[in-house]
């Protein structure tokens, strides 16, 4: 046991320790008395002599305290003194603790989410030995931005690495698989190397792990089910091992059931099965990634051998990388080796990091406002305590000693607030995330997504660091300020007005200004987001959506051959077109306002590649424009032959009106040609314009793309326009799909669901900023009320005289507010400027509303100013209501 630990134990049971010491010394005296008696003294003499001999017991007790606590003693004294002052000022203490609890709580809460998304490591036995390996490839444009490995690269690392006891590779099974049975549904799977369970050290709960033979060519297809799928789809049937199930229309043998909590290859998606690494082609006939050296699809996880440092692993793997690079001229590869974490993909990680920064900043504002509030309270209290502090300083306390006392008090406040806030936040954010995550997902998202926000060591460290940092942040400035009292002034007069120098007023004013500015930023964000939400309900996207339903056929035909799939798709289209009440059916690759965009590059024939413009190319069938009621304003729509055969050279194209204007300003686009490339593909297509369609907001609500080009083609989504109401159309479609093939799993939704998704995201963002904004506003108005009442406190006498001399209550009110509201106005102006600088962050939820929208911006600004003014007036009216004679008599 370390000596400081023994000191701590002493502190915790100090009173018991004191009692023991008293008893021990009394025992000592009794022993001495007995001894003296045995030497012939009378009992009384012995007792007296022993009492004399004992010396100063009180002094001994003090010395013992000093022995135990040493430098701790003064610190402990500070704490007890602080607690005593808090007990004497319960109102102050409660306001400060609640404010801090709010500020620290919401930040700890949002950090649990950020931590869950970005920082949480992979959970497995002895996880500290596991490392994630990723690469970034230079010199091969097609591979830019990818971080996974090809199958042959994996084998090279696996076979050559000596510092690792094992190297695992895993990738997603392409698309979502369809689980057969009575109620077919889409599930997510992963393809893993056959050492997966051994290296992760997580043996299956039932059955067996993959063996090397499962990954050999020609092996029978076996899968290990996730614990979750086993429970939900197979009722936790222990007899499942060895049975066959239907996966993508294939008969698959179940080798085992993974243990609960086994990593399933995805960061947030709930995975349902694991299959051997080479099983992709068996599950989906066109999955050729396993055999393709240019396909980077495998994530790597290695386990370090005992006693091998990560530096050694890096050195060895770098050598292997260099060997591989030598075989591929022009390529240079950089490896990243880090603490193992779930695979997430660079793009998603980038988006999530950006969102995390915005969220943490927004929540950080609340904490700053809370800090400013408590600092203000402390300043006000410090001024009223300046008498006490003055006396302490004149009795010889050093400034450092006084500052330490004051900072100890603020740390105590933040510890209590932080503990309270964090505990509440850990509970409430779990519920909030459970609500918010489904709202952010598109309604056609087929899989289950979980974000595990349970606290871990990182969350706890964050909460502790935040609490201590907060305590110092809001405590130090007032402590520095208060500890420099005007001794002379304090000794001369009483506490009223003493120490309330101009300096203190300016510091308080700045704090209020900062509060108002931060509050303004949040409220403007909320106001603009609310306008965006309004726009999602009122906007005309330029296409018909109320009477249209869409069918998503994505990965619906997995397991069928390409010819079977195509025939099936045609049968389905015909069945849908023949439905009673259906006007027209169109096939399209991307449904309007969907989330799956593929960028394309355009240029005119005379332009160089560097002048290419980025835009969208959308393959659509002939009836697309009539289904969505997007008028063709010039030229013609596609013909059925153009859609079916796609052999025409150059390919026909229809431009949006804006695209036509941007490419040929003022000219007639019909008959002109342009070149189209997809990034990373060497093919250059020549397009010939046959028509111009009216503009429509097809990629995002409120957004007209500058370059949007339609080409004839078909794809994985079907748009169905009905005469009856859309719910009837949707149920009609479902019946028709079942009639064509009962094993098809397709998503059928009204097209309005795509708008609903925008609304749902917009609503979530609005409530987020609105909630934070209201929180900030409440805190800031408490702060303003505080400084106004404080400013009045020193001026009761003056106000009394003014009122007695005949000043009206209104003129006095104006006088008080003029002085105290200046920082509010300055803060508001700064807040508006900062908000307009930052509003670009919000652009994705504004849906065409301008970031300078007068209603959203002005409304929010007026609200903040109004509330600020109201809280100022409320505080100031206390002074003007006071009876002047009473005030003057009091002086």
């Amino acid at each position, binding site marked *: 046991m370390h000596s400081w630990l*023994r000191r701590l134990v002493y502190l915790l049971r100090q009173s018991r320790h004191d009692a023991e010491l008293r008893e021990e010394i009394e025992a*000592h005296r009794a*022993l001495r008395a007995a*001894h003296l008696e045995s030497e012939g003294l009378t009992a009384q003499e012995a007792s007296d002599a022993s009492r004399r001999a004992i010396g100063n017991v009180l002094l001994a007790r003090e010395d013992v305290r000093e022995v135990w606590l040493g430098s701790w003693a003064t610190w402990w004294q500070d704490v007890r003194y602080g607690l005593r002052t808090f007990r004497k000022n319960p109102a102050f203490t409660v306001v400060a603790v609640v404010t801090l609890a709010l500020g620290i709580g919401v930040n700890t809460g949002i950090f649990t989410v950020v931590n869950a998304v970005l920082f949480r490591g992979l959970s497995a036995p002895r996880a500290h030995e596991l490392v994630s390996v990723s690469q970034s490839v230079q010199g091969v444009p097609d591979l830019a931005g990818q971080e996974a490995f090809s199958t042959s690269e994996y084998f090279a690392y696996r076979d050559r690495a000596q510092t690792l006891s094992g190297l695992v590779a895993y990738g997603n099974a392409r698309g979502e698989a369809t689980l057969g049975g009575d109620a077919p549904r889409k599930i997510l799977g992963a393809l893993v190397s056959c050492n997966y369970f051994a290296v992760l050290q997580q043996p299956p709960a039932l059955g067996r792990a993959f063996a090397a033979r499962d990954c050999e060519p020609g092996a029978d297809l076996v899968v290990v089910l996730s614990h979750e799928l086993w429970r939900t789809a197979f009722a936790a049937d222990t007899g499942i091992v060895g049975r066959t199930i239907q996966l993508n229309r294939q008969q698959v043998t179940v080798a085992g059931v993974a243990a609960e909590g086994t990593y399933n290859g995805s960061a947030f998606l709930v995975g349902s099965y694991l299959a051997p690494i080479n099983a992709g082609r068996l599950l989906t006939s066109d999955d050729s990634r396993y055999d393709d050296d240019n396909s980077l699809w495998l994530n790597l996880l290695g386990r370090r051998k005992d006693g091998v440092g990560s530096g050694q692993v890096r050195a060895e793997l770098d050598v292997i990388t260099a060997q591989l690079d030598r075989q591929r001229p022009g390529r240079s590869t950089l490896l990243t080796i880090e603490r193992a974490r779930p695979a997430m993909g660079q793009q998603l990680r980038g988006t999530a990091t950006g969102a995390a920064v915005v969220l943490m900043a927004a929540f950080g504002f609340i904490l700053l406002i809370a800090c400013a509030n408590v600092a203000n309270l402390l300043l006000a209290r410090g001024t009223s305590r300046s008498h006490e502090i003055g006396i302490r300083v004149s009795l010889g306390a050093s400034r450092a000693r006084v500052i330490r006392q004051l900072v100890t008090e603020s740390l105590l406040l933040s510890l209590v607030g932080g503990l309270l806030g964090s505990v509440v936040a850990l509970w409430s954010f779990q519920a909030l995330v459970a609500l918010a995550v489904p709202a952010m997902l598109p309604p056609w998202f087929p899989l289950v997504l979980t974000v595990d926000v349970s606290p871990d060591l990182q969350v706890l460290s964050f909460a502790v660091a935040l609490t201590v940092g907060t305590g110092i942040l809001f405590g130090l400035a007032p402590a520095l300020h208060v500890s420099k009292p005007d001794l002379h002034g304090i000794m001369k007069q009483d506490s009223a007005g003493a120490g309330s120098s101009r300096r203190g007023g300016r510091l308080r004013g700045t704090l209020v200004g900062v509060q108002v500015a931060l509050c303004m930023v949040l409220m403007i964000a909320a106001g603009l987001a609310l306008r965006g939400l309004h726009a999602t309900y009122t906007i005309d996207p330029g296409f018909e959506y109320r009477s249209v339903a869409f069918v998503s056929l994505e990965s619906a035909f997995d397991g069928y051959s390409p010819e079977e799939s195509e025939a099936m798709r045609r049968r389905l289209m015909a069945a849908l077109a023949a439905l009673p009440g259906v006007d027209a059916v169109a096939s399209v690759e991307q449904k309007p306002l969907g989330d799956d965009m593929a960028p394309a590059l355009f240029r005119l024939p005379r332009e160089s590649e560097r002048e290419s413009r980025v835009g969208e190319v959308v393959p659509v069938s002939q009836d697309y424009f009539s289904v969505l009621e997007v008028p063709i304003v010039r030229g013609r729509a596609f013909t059925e032959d153009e859609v079916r055969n796609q052999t025409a050279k150059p390919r026909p194209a229809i431009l949006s009106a804006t695209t036509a204007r941007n490419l040929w300003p003022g000219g007639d686009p019909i008959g002109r040609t342009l070149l189209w490339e997809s990034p990373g593909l060497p093919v250059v297509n020549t397009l010939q314009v046959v028509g111009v369609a009216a503009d429509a907001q097809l990629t995002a609500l409120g957004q007209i793309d500058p370059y949007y080009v339609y080409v004839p083609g078909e794809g994985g989504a079907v748009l169905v326009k009905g005469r009856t109401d859309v719910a009837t159309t949707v149920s009609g479609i479902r019946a028709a799909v079942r009639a064509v093939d009962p094993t098809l799993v397709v998503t059928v939704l009204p097209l309005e669901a795509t708008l609903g998704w925008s609304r749902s995201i917009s609503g979530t963002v609005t409530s987020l900023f609105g909630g934070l904004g209201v929180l900030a506003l409440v805190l800031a108005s408490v702060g303003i009320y505080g400084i106004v009442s404080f400013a009045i406190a020193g001026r009761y006498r003056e106000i009394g005289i003014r009122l007695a001399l005949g000043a009206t209550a209104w003129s006095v009110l104006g006088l008080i507010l003029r002085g105290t509201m200046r920082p509010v106005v300055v803060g508001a102006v700064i807040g508006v400027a900062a908000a307009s600088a930052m509003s670009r962050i919000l652009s994705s939820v504004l849906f065409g509303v301008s970031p300078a929208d007068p209603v959203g911006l002005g409304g929010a600004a007026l609200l903040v100013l109004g509330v600020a003014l109201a809280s100022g007036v409320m505080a100031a009216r206390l002074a003007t209501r006071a009876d002047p004679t009473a005030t003057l008599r009091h002086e």
Partner: protein
Amino acid sequence: MGLTNTPSDLLPGTLELLILKSLVAGPKHGYAIVEHLRVTSRDVLHVGESALYPALQRLLVNGWAKAEWGVSETNRRARYYRLTPAGRKQLAGERAEFERMVRAIQHVLEAT
């Protein structure tokens, strides 16, 4: 009977050294330690409680001794102090240091 209540008559740390030494023979309570010191010093060292108990607590803080309640020879509840291995090590070190000090002082006094 002269009372030596203040430890300042001794070199700093000497009282702890003497207590450690008196515990080598076995656990003792406070009074027994005082008596042991008085007798073995041929009635020169009379250690008062106000010096003894802070010194004993210093042994506890540093982990050189452990305290436990027991029953004295006169059937009274008393706290017995027992030397720990760390205390034994400390005693050896302190003792060497003390002897070095005493020799140094002798050298100074005997210098001409």
